[in-house]
């Protein structure tokens, strides 16, 4: 349970970081920070899990894979933003 809580917290903050893209406004038009949750629960991880069970090694591996994928997507998004800036 303890381990699972830490993983949830870590993933939540990771998701928060990945999906938070601050867009600077260069004119009077208001642009607010926005997060796309991509059809996930807003807490990031707890959907469908049995809250009284510890996380299994397989689940931990899956989470690690997801985190790696999210990091890749973040880098891709940042690169796209850089490309847009150059254009």
């Amino acid at each position, binding site marked *: 349970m303890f381990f699972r809580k830490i993983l949830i*917290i870590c993933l939540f903050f990771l998701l928060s970081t990945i999906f938070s893209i601050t867009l600077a406004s260069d004119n009077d038009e*208001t642009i607010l920070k926005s997060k796309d*949750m991509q059809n996930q629960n807003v807490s990031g991880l707890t959907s469908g899990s049995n809250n009284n069970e510890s996380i299994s090694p397989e689940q931990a591996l899956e989470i690690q894979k997801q985190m790696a994928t999210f990091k890749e997507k973040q880098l891709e998004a940042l690169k796209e933003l850089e490309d847009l800036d150059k254009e």
Partner: protein
Amino acid sequence: MNRNLFFLIFFFFKNAFAVDYVIGSGSEFKMTTNKGESADLSIYITDSSFTKLGVEYFFSAGGSFLKTEVWQQFHLGLGGSRLTLDDGYILSDDMKRPEIMNKEFIASKSDGVNVEDFFYSKSSDIEKFKIGEEKIEVPAGTLLTTHYKKANNGQIVDFWVSDKAGAIGLVKLISSGRTANQNYRIELMSLLKNVKAKINPTEAVPLTEKGKFFLRPRSK
């Protein structure tokens, strides 16, 4: 504090019949109390039709290792001349299934401002509480808002709303009052989209003691 969350549903009054409520859209807020406690609060649309609006809250509080996560989902009736609160559900990270909030908790009222105080059927109902247009800065950004002030039984709620702030519309809220749980502030951290609802009402069971614990009034 959960009781305070309950009345936050009022944000939907703002343009209850004019805004296109996209399922999964919402807002993420940071809530802080005068005692230095803070909590993350997200509110998002779970159901939207001509006669019904579903909204879910995600509330996360506590330190990193003693975190409490609570979801509440409410269904509002839009069919009549006035907004109605039809049913509600609660789920915590320690509950296996969502629980049905019975009428006792849905209809319960706090000493100060209550959810019904913010249910308006037309824009003129709220205009009398308008203070003015103000440009304010919150973590989500800087924007022009409309400032309103509403008071009841010693609780004063100042709130700033904007059409730019998505389906929920709230940008900032400051509540002050005689009791400890009436003193807090809320600021918009980010808009949300494509949020998946946590609570499935078809899986809900009657309210247990654990559910009542989360819903009972906190010490003042």
